[in-house]
């Protein structure tokens, strides 16, 4: 036991001596939580659009000023003719064009019908449908004004209530997501590299021939990363409560417990990756190239997992951060208790046990 403590101390000293890495270990989660919390948003607004107004009459001017007043659009200098549209789209200057035909209000008044052309750059389908919907809504409101609201019989008004995140901010979704992503990748990388480094430098052999138990080597490698990550958790929680106005609504104890479990799981993933790698470069390539994008996409904070094909849903179930993301959302944002996250906790626990067991079993205690 005393041996172990001495070794853990040695590992800590090594970690603290490497100021640059240490700076990254703490700086990375902080910078990213703040940056992503403020900057990222899935809401589509301020889309650059352009108007081609062949009509230049009262109605078209009114509608254009309605569009200009909307927070969803950033109206650019009007174009004279639709022939200029292609070029503007190709330069990526605009996302959509609204075309008013000549005789617009004349048609409207005489025949009771007029049509506006809306041309969207559908290379990004999501933005295209959303902004087309926005325009349609503006036109519908205008139509209702034309008809006079009182004249409409049988009016149903939906009263919509946004739960948990009334202003539709990006942070409540991204903070738990980035927390899961960063903790997972940092823990995995640091562990796998730390162990492979000893192999690459040949110091692992010295450790293995010493009377020190191999399990202690592993424990002493994991403990500093565990503690650093828990400190990081608290920094993240404080930052998001101070800057992003996201307080922990549920039990802090439960959140810390879940995070610790998740960190240990990620450390075990790193341990497991280290077994197959001989050089630090290989370990890093495996953990960065191999895990970064899948973790990012399959955690579920960017794209809803239930929309994915079944194969990816199965794969997503194997990603620990996916379960952790659910736990953080429920405990931190929705303020739910143990009863609603025990399943996810159990899954993390099972993953953790499984990974630790297989990596400890395949950890080579002999020299080649």
């Amino acid at each position: 036991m005393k041996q172990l403590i001495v070794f853990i101390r040695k590992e800590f000293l090594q970690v603290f001596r490497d100021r640059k890495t240490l700076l990254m270990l703490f700086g990375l989660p902080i910078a990213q939580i703040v940056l992503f919390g403020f900057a990222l948003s899935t809401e589509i607004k301020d889309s650059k659009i352009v108007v081609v107004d062949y009509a230049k009459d009262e109605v078209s001017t009114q509608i254009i000023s309605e569009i200009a007043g909307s927070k969803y659009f950033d109206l650019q200098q009007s174009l004279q003719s639709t022939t200029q549209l292609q070029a503007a789209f190709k330069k990526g200057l605009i996302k959509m064009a609204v075309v008013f035909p000549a005789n617009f209000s004349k048609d409207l008044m005489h025949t009771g019908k007029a049509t506006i052309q809306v041309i969207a750059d559908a290379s990004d389908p999501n933005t295209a449908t959303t902004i087309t919907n926005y325009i349609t809504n503006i036109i519908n409101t205008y139509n209702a004004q034309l008809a006079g609201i009182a004249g409409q019989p049988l009016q149903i008004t939906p009263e919509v209530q946004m739960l948990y995140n009334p202003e539709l901010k990006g942070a409540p979704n991204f903070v738990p997501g980035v927390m899961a992503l960063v903790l997972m990748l940092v823990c995995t990388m640091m562990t796998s590299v730390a162990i492979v480094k000893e192999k690459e430098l040949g110091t692992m052999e010295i450790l293995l021939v010493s009377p020190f138990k191999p399990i202690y080597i592993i424990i002493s490698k994991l403990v500093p990363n565990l503690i650093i990550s828990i400190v990081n958790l608290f920094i993240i929680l404080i930052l998001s409560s101070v800057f992003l106005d996201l307080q922990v609504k549920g039990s802090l104890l439960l959140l810390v417990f879940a995070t610790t479990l998740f960190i240990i799981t990620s450390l075990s993933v790193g341990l497991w990756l280290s077994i197959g790698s001989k050089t630090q470069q290989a370990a890093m390539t495996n953990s960065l190239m191999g895990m970064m994008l899948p973790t990012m996409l399959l955690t579920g904070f960017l794209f809803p997992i239930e929309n994915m094909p079944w194969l990816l849903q199965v794969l997503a179930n194997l990603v620990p951060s996916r379960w952790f993301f659910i736990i953080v959302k429920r405990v931190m944002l929705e303020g739910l208790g143990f009863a609603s996250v025990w399943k996810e906790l159990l899954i993390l626990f099972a993953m953790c046990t499984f990974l630790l067991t297989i990596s400890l079993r395949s950890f080579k205690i002999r020299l080649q």
Partner: protein
Amino acid sequence: MKTLYFLLEKEFRQMLRNKGVLRALFIAPTIQLILMPMAADYSVKNIHISVVDNDHSTYSQKLINKIGSSGYFTLTGYTPSYKQALTMVEQDKADLALHIPAGFERNLVRENTQKLYIAINAISGMKASLGGAYLSSIVQDFNNDIRIDWENGAQDDTPKIGVASYYWYNPFMNYKLYMVPGILVTLVTALAAMQSAFNIVAEKESGTIEQINVTPIQKHIFIIGKLIPYLVLATIIFTIGLILGRVLYGIVPVGNIGVLYVSLIVYLFAMLGLGLLISTYSNTQMQAMSLSFFFINIFNMLSGVFTSIDSMPQWAQYIVETFPPSHFIKIMRMVVLKGSGLGDITYHLGAMFVIGLVFNTWAILNYSKRA
């Protein structure tokens, strides 16, 4: 020139000898390019809705049927009270809850107006706003239907403006056309910025850089010799990506392929410069890894692959402007989907070149041929 040739031969041999890394470098991007575009699908469907019908009238039944048959929603619950429906939202069994109050039909007919209550779990903003919009438009449709029934087909002579919408460049709204080019860029980014940094630092860590430093090899030759192999590797992976995109997802670039490769070279010039810069600031591979992870993660999240840059606050947009990947992603999407030519992308190309020049100059100034 001859020195460079020998250096390159050495680098390529080392790279090819390291089978494990090489395999990971090819296999990881390939698998990810096959699988990940399927995950990156924003088209929202299967929104789980839990309905509380306290009215049990013809109208409420009609409305519920209309929601169920719209294709966007899956009815997951049919609860007797609003409170229970909210519990389902809490447990993530439902994304939104719709409450049709008692007396819905009667009040509608008698008083001409009636409210419906919708509660949405808004933590995932995108799903919330889209789900809410879909539901509102279904309610609106339903409203029109019953109105027409009510008026018994009486002519509606109020003037009405219609909207005819056209979707250019991607009329079938195929999300993969948009995502595959973006994902390809993130894979090339990770490769270029990271691997080049590791490689130089590995020489530092193992001490072999000292041997190179005492030889008459000039420092720019040494650096070029280090970077060219990664330029080649990244170009190969980029090509594999284009082929995979064509074979698997049927993505044929509308624009000129040559334009894509010119942009790729400028982009790699910038990203390898960043890798070089990272390597001059790191003494161990661990440091190089932490630094490059920091940048790559920020690039991936902020460069507009997954979220729109336009909806970020202005200060963030200025920051993103200095990221080479955000320009290259735009170029890729413009050329592949819209067929933009060199003239259309000059700004982005120029921006990447300037950023690359800054990175490389900074790195060379900071790199000293000393141990």
